[in-house]
């Protein structure tokens, strides 16, 4: 277990370094954004003096390196700056949408992960059967289409034609808990179909590969019953690569959130990101990008650690 702890520590360090580099990247790109921030805050009627004062206040006249340093310092203290559009600390602005997005994301994962794993295992065990082919086709469709197409089609079927579910979500029009949950169904489905598909395919592929392996054959020839072979011999090896996909899907979800929230009008962090970009709200933009990158990187770390814990060969120096 000691080597595992060391592994985790090493990767955490790498994560910090990566995040630092990512923050540089984000900062660089956002600095290139056209448009004068001071004018946007004070409006077109502002006098040149007021603009200059504001610029000094915000530190916009300092060289880029200094600005970056101040920003980074702020981040490390938990201060993500002031939103230029909302005139409130970014941290305050982000909290509610972040919570809403988390609900959506967690619901999505709660649906996609177990369903994907179960379907993947089932299809691998019944390879090339009708069930397998049907599921494989379905997942290919789901994996290929962008979330707004899946979402759009879902809305047309379930809202327009069948009228069972509402076409918008999270806008506050839900008065009961049941209504709140109902309006989440379509966005969660749109978000998680893609991920379910990827997980199912990876699981099926790795389980199939393991089923064909020499050690599973050897285990069967020991006279062990099938359930034992699947649980103790097949799954540990097959879960490793699938864990990576699960972690990566957290990253994909970040992109998916932007689209699904825009489609359903859901006030989450994705919609806020589009808003921030449109309005050149640089501090907000930087903060959201950093949060997304951090979540993504942590997810990857979790996948690596999990894979190492499951498969003793990975990363060992034997």
């Amino acid at each position: 277990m000691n080597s595992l702890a060391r592994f985790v520590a090493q990767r955490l360090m790498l994560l910090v370094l990566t995040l630092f580099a990512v923050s540089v990247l984000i900062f660089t790109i956002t600095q290139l954004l056209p448009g004068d921030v001071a004018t946007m805050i004070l409006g077109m009627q502002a006098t040149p003096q007021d603009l200059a004062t504001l610029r000094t206040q915000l530190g916009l006249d300092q060289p880029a390196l200094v600005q970056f340093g101040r920003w980074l310092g702020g981040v490390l203290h938990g201060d993500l700056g002031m939103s230029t559009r909302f005139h409130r600390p970014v941290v305050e602005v982000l909290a509610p949408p972040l919570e809403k997005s988390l609900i959506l994301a967690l619901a999505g994962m709660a649906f996609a992960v177990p369903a994907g794993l179960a379907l993947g295992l089932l299809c691998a065990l019944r390879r090339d059967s009708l069930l397998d082919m049907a599921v494989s086709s379905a997942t290919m469709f789901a994996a290929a289409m962008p979330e707004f197409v899946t979402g759009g089609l879902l809305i047309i079927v379930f809202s327009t034609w069948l009228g069972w579910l509402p076409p918008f979500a999270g806008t506050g029009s839900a008065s009961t808990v049941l209504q709140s949950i109902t309006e989440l169904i379509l966005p969660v489905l749109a978000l998680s179909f893609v991920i379910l598909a990827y997980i199912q395919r990876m699981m099926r592929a790795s389980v199939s590969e393991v089923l064909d392996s020499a050690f599973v054959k050897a285990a069967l020839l020991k006279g062990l019953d099938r359930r034992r072979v699947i649980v103790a011999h097949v799954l540990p090896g097959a879960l490793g690569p699938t864990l990576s996909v699960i972690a990566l899907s957290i990253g994909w979800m970040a992109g998916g959130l932007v689209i699904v929230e825009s489609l359903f009008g859901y006030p989450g962090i994705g919609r806020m990101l589009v808003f921030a970009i449109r309005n050149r709200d640089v501090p907000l933009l930087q903060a959201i990008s950093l949060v997304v990158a951090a979540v993504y990187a942590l997810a990857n770390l979790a996948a690596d650690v999990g894979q190492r814990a499951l498969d003793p060969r990975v990363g060992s120096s034997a």
Partner: protein
Amino acid sequence: MALLEVAHLNVGYASVRGSVRAVRDVSFSLDRDEVLGVVGESGSGKSTLAHALMGYRMRGTSMLEGDVTFDGIPLLRSPATELRKIWGGRIAMVHQNPLASLTPTMRVGEQIAETIRQHRNATAAEARSAVAACLRAVELPEGSDIARRYPHQLSGGQRQRITIAIALALEPDLMILDEPTTNLDATTEAVILDLLEDIRSRTRMAMVYISHNLGVIARVATRVAVMYAGEIVETGSVSQIYTAPVHSYTRALLESLPRPGNSKPKAAVLSGEPVLAAMSIRKSFGRRRATVRAVRGVSLHVPRGAVVGLVGESGSGKSTLLRCIAGLERPESGTIQYSGSDLPPNLADRGKDMLRTMQMVFQDPESTLNPSLSIGTSLRRHLIALKATDGVTARRSVDEALRRVRLDTAFRGRLPRELSGGEKQRVAIARAFLSAPDLVLCDEPLSSLDVSVQAAVCRLLLDLQRDYGTSYVFVSHDLAIVRYMSDRIVVMYLGEVVEEGDAESFDRRPLHPYTEALFSATPIPDPEAATARVRLKSQISDADRERPGCIFNARCHRRKGAECSEIAPPWRDTGGRRYRCHWSPAELAAQQGNEAASAARG
């Protein structure tokens, strides 16, 4: 009634090319205490046969006909529940390649325990003590350490013992062994074979032992069946097969093996400047604490026109040394003189004229040729790079090169995947000789070829060597081939040379204890041959490299005393040979003489 009765067994697969019959009309019977050795090369159907004997349908099987009756039970017609009771419990299989057939994510002790729990309904405690007994039975050191390890943390020999332990756990009536020692070093293989013999005499188990190695079969089997293209072409007792083979395939198989005392006509070793003189080559791998000193101060002389055989087991450094000479690896220190001038260690620093005179043949025929290029293109590229010939001459030279290695010029347009392993290796040899080099480095060129093909390629190499007067450095772990081919032999162990000299003098008697062990471990396809049984304790361990004293100290069966673990042994010269040992030649001769005498008496 025989324990195992096989009648008209046929197994077929459906593939794109139609159905393929892997096992054709096989019949035989087997009793307790008998060992049936099944000899066959890759493609003979022996693995399919092994699985069919258990009643197991491999994936893709389209046809499984005939009868396999075990102790009265018809295996091919039994339901899965019955088969599961028999598998592991009454018939057990020892698989090829233990690294692939042990579950990598499960501790090895647990892999033994689960069989016991499954078949005997044992409790955890009962299973644990049974596992300990199994480990003892295969001579693995007791204690929870090994049982708690994962397969990749064990050595090859240890893994093989574990697979045997799993098979033995429930004391089956029949054990089927599919190439159990193929991936092991000769010295480890010898020990495992001893263990199997021991187990068999104790338990009276019946065994089906499958191997492509005739020498091994001669050692373990009581009866032999020779398989070719799915059929059993000949059966008989061991001595029958080896002394009076009937079928032409059996005869060809036996003839293709080099036997001791039967070697090529030795060239008179030319005196004069050696074509290659490597001095004190050192090469290590890895970083800081995990450094492995692969080659530790080795010097090598290759006389002009001679074949120098470099023999050793895994970890000996022989391949690394070869690659340092070739320029594919950079030695940390040491110099190489090539035909009198200094050879730059960096491949990029060597001029075309130097590259032209030294070429290499690699071990794996599957990766020796670029799979996306035709044979002609590969050869032409190599030729033009080395000799800057024009298109027309190049084409003629390529045709000549193919003819030289006895391949039809039509091969020019073929892709590597259309060639067999032997043919690919011939092309590789043709490529090496395109520039008529003075020295060809051979890195185990025959090891990945089937036995029946090895002989032809071996002869080709020797013919070319003779015709061109080229020198070879021939690396191999197979002592028999090295003894057959070489004019000089160099024996390496864990990065050092322990013995070297003229091949002829080796034929008389090995001197260094390691060479002795290596000679006696090599299975000879002659059931009559009596060789002194030298068995090495323990395994090769990288840690031995770092200890002071003699490199072979930890495993030596002739250990002299404290000096072996403290002082580096001196070189001793005697009659065309040198070796490093604390024993003098006379002392060694006396010891070996006494042993031979007592063996004859006892």
